[in-house]
């Protein structure tokens, strides 16, 4: 069953058309890697799906909910927020909240959300304990059991990115998006992030990963999209796209990475 459907998505900034009609589907449990040269529109695509940017036309559906139906009219904030919880986004530069500890970064959104539950007043203590327990479990899973009470400024880039992954995971999104999760890291720290993402893939988490790590993309994904100048130039299984690319553009792009 497809959990993410993107149809003919278009987006311009002023006169430059950045997305020129992008369509793809993603099934539950699949891992999609999006590759492509700088400026091809990968970030814009993720931002449009995650409602940080409003597309000009096209449709986006996540788990049956219409995120965007082509009309750039203002959505109600409450609808937008409810939809927002179906997706998660991990940023290139983490965007952790500096004033909170690792643990509080992870629990902030669930705690605020819990306040809107009807039974919050009666079960406050139990609800918050449950959220904290869940957060601790996820932080332990990403190898940060010892760092929960540390502030972001006390963590390495790799550790910060693992906190931000945990932060997105605790909300249990239907699709988790990553925008170049290792690009802001020193080369020796990328491994720890890729390992975490590989673990999530093994758990059959549905993920979309924009990355420049070709070997990783080939190893972890079930599906690969090559974007070029605002369109999908090629898509298929990793073996098809990496092993036997059809378009000349894809060939040239992949060759560049093997040099």
């Amino acid at each position, binding site marked *: 069953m497809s959990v993410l459907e993107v149809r003919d998505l278009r987006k311009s900034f002023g006169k430059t058309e950045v997305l020129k009609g992008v369509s793809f589907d993603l099934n539950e449990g699949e891992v999609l890697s999006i590759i492509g040269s700088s400026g091809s529109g990968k970030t814009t695509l993720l931002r449009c799906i*995650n*409602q*940080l940017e409003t597309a000009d036309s096209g449709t986006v559906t996540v788990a049956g909910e219409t995120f965007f139906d082509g009309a750039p009219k203002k959505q109600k*904030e409450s609808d937008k*927020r409810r939809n*927002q*919880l179906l*997706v*998660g*986004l991990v*940023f290139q*530069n983490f*965007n*952790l*909240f*500096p*004033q909170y500890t690792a643990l509080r970064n992870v629990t*902030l*959104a669930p705690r*605020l*959300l819990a306040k809107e539950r009807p039974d919050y007043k009666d079960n406050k203590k139990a609800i918050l304990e449950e959220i904290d327990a869940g957060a601790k479990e996820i932080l332990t899973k990403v190898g940060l059991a010892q760092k929960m009470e540390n*502030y*972001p*400024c006390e963590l390495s880039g790799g550790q910060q990115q693992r906190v*931000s992954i945990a*932060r*997105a995971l605790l*909300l249990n999104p239907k699709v988790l998006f990553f925008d170049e999760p290792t690009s802001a890291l020193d080369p020796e720290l990328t491994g720890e992030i890729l390992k975490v993402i590989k673990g999530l893939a093994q758990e059959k988490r549905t993920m979309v990963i924009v990355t420049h790590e070709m070997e990783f993309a080939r190893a972890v994904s079930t599906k690969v999209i090559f974007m070029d100048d605002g369109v999908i130039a090629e898509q298929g299984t990793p073996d098809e796209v990496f092993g036997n690319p059809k378009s000349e553009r894809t060939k040239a792009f992949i060759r560049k990475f093997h040099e």
Partner: protein
Amino acid sequence: MSFAEQFPIVFAALNEGFFQTLKLFGVTLAGAIPLGLLIALGVMSRFKPLSAVLKTVVWIVRGSPLMIQLLIIFYMPGMLFGHPIWGGGETGRFWAASVAFIINYACYFSEIYRGGIQGVPVGQSEAGQVLGLSRRQVFFKVTLLQMVKRIVPPMSNEIITLVKDTSLARIIALQEIIWAGQAFMKGRDGISGQLWPLFFTGVYYLAFSGLLTVLFGKLEKKLDYFKV
């Protein structure tokens, strides 16, 4: 009169003047802190005419001496309407001075706020948004404290400057501490030709700005546990 006899008289007069100084200081902060925020929001507004007008006002206020602004606000209404709006007494002078100080300081504060608001990376509110936080929650739970941390050091500078700037209100004869000290040169309470009371007012300014420095230092320390 010996110094020992002069001192209690001068001390009482200076205390009275300093009370007026503190009142002006307090009223200015109470007015300029919120007004500055409104100006900052207006300057950042997408409604261009409002933004342009406020930018010009801020430029004029920051680009001209506060002393002239005091004179204009005190005397201009009288020149325009033919009769003074402030009244001639100490109360009138106090409110004229307050208005001038509030406008002046609100313009300085607005620039600090603007820096604080725009200094918080957009990634912070975007991260809040993708976690499903409402706009309100993003402001109060994510950006506000980061803004406060950014504005505390420049605000403390401005506020300490304000302590000393209150002496400018002397130009419209507000009976603040400088005015009180100066009176002993011309003659007051049987003391005349004395300069030391005027010099002694410096001690009050030093003590008060010292106190503020300590308080702001404490606040900065309190916010030291995270980096922005």
